């Protein structure tokens, strides 16, 4: 499996026969790149430890990530990152973009979406994600975040989800919703299924008993129950079909 923390899949040959990323080369790149990625709130340091190898330390609000540079180099090698300064710099920037979401960021910019509730992909629930460019990163509340903070962040994220602009495509009796840039945001509209029904009706479809077929990170399909069953029942891909009236009852993850 390709490690998405370092960007998109690289060339097939690189994945089959990855070229080793040297830790010294990565240190040189990190020395140059990490300061450019730092912000007032995000601190990125390369800590030199004689005899123990270098450490990348990422600090933002309550979150701290410490990673051995040699482990980072190995992970990049396995992910097929090109062993060029540009390739390593891009991979480092993508790795930083995948850093954990802080409580403050979730509170300020979080959006509610549906995600898998389990690794075997049999159930779904609501999750707060934060957009960073073309990525949407999940928020796990910190240990210091109390129940009121978590509740406020989820409420704000639900409100923001109303405003996520989605593309609607009508395919006969099926309405398909997608986000043009960040696939995981396709489920944001499900916080307000009545509004979805309004747009579907305006597009000429009647769907009083709308069922929603959800595969997180894929377009959302809405249809009557028998058509939804036909759609989802004939694929080996994991999905969950939910009557629209049950969406609000799905748990928070």
């Amino acid at each position, binding site marked *: 499996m390709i490690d998405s923390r370092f960007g998109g899949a690289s060339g097939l040959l690189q994945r089959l026969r990855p070229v080793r990323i040297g830790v010294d080369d990565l240190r040189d790149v990190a020395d140059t790149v990490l300061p450019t990625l730092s912000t007032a709130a995000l601190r990125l340091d390369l800590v030199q430890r004689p005899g123990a190898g270098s450490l990348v330390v990422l600090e933002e609000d309550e979150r701290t990530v410490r990673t051995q540079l040699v482990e980072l180099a190995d992970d990049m090698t396995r992910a097929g990152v090109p062993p060029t300064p540009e390739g390593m710099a891009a991979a480092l920037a993508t790795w930083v973009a995948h850093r954990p979401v802080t409580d403050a960021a979730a509170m300020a910019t979080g959006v509610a979406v549906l995600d898998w509730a389990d690794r075997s992909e049999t159930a779904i629930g609501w999750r707060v994600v934060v957009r960073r460019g073309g990525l949407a990163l999940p928020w796990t509340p910190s240990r210091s975040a109390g129940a009121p903070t978590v509740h406020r962040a989820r409420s704000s994220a639900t409100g923001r989800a109303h405003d996520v602009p989605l593309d609607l495509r009508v395919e006969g009796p*099926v309405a398909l919703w997608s986000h043009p840039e960040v696939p995981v945001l396709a489920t944001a509209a499900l916080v307000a299924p009545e509004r979805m029904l309004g747009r579907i009706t305006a597009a000429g479809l009647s769907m009083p008993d709308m069922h929603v077929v959800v595969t997180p990170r894929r377009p959302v399909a809405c249809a009557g129950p028998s058509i939804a069953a036909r759609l989802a029942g004939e694929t080996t891909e994991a999905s969950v079909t939910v009557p629209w009236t049950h969406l609000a009852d799905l748990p928070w993850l």
Partner: protein
Amino acid sequence: MSALPAGTSGPAVLVPYWLAATQRSQLATAVRQALSRRPVHPVAVVHLEDVLTELHVAAARDAVWPASAARVRLATGWDPDVLPVRLSAAELASLLDLTELPGSVRDILGGSASS
């Protein structure tokens, strides 16, 4: 996986027939012509309307989960507009009864079903 109420009877077994966009269009036209031009048995009407639905559902399925059909197209060298249209035995029988069905589509439906 479905959260549909338990206890409802499951759908019939559907078999995929791989059709290009032109063939799907010809199939839809033939069905619509049959439904509009002459009396059709009410049961066949239901099956033929389900075929029209499936033509849309097939496209929707490919929009939501494009990977599996893309793998088949890659392996076979088929064009990007070739999609699996999944039909029950009853729907297939109703289609094969149509005199309007073009020969090229009839050939695919008649002999090259694959799973």
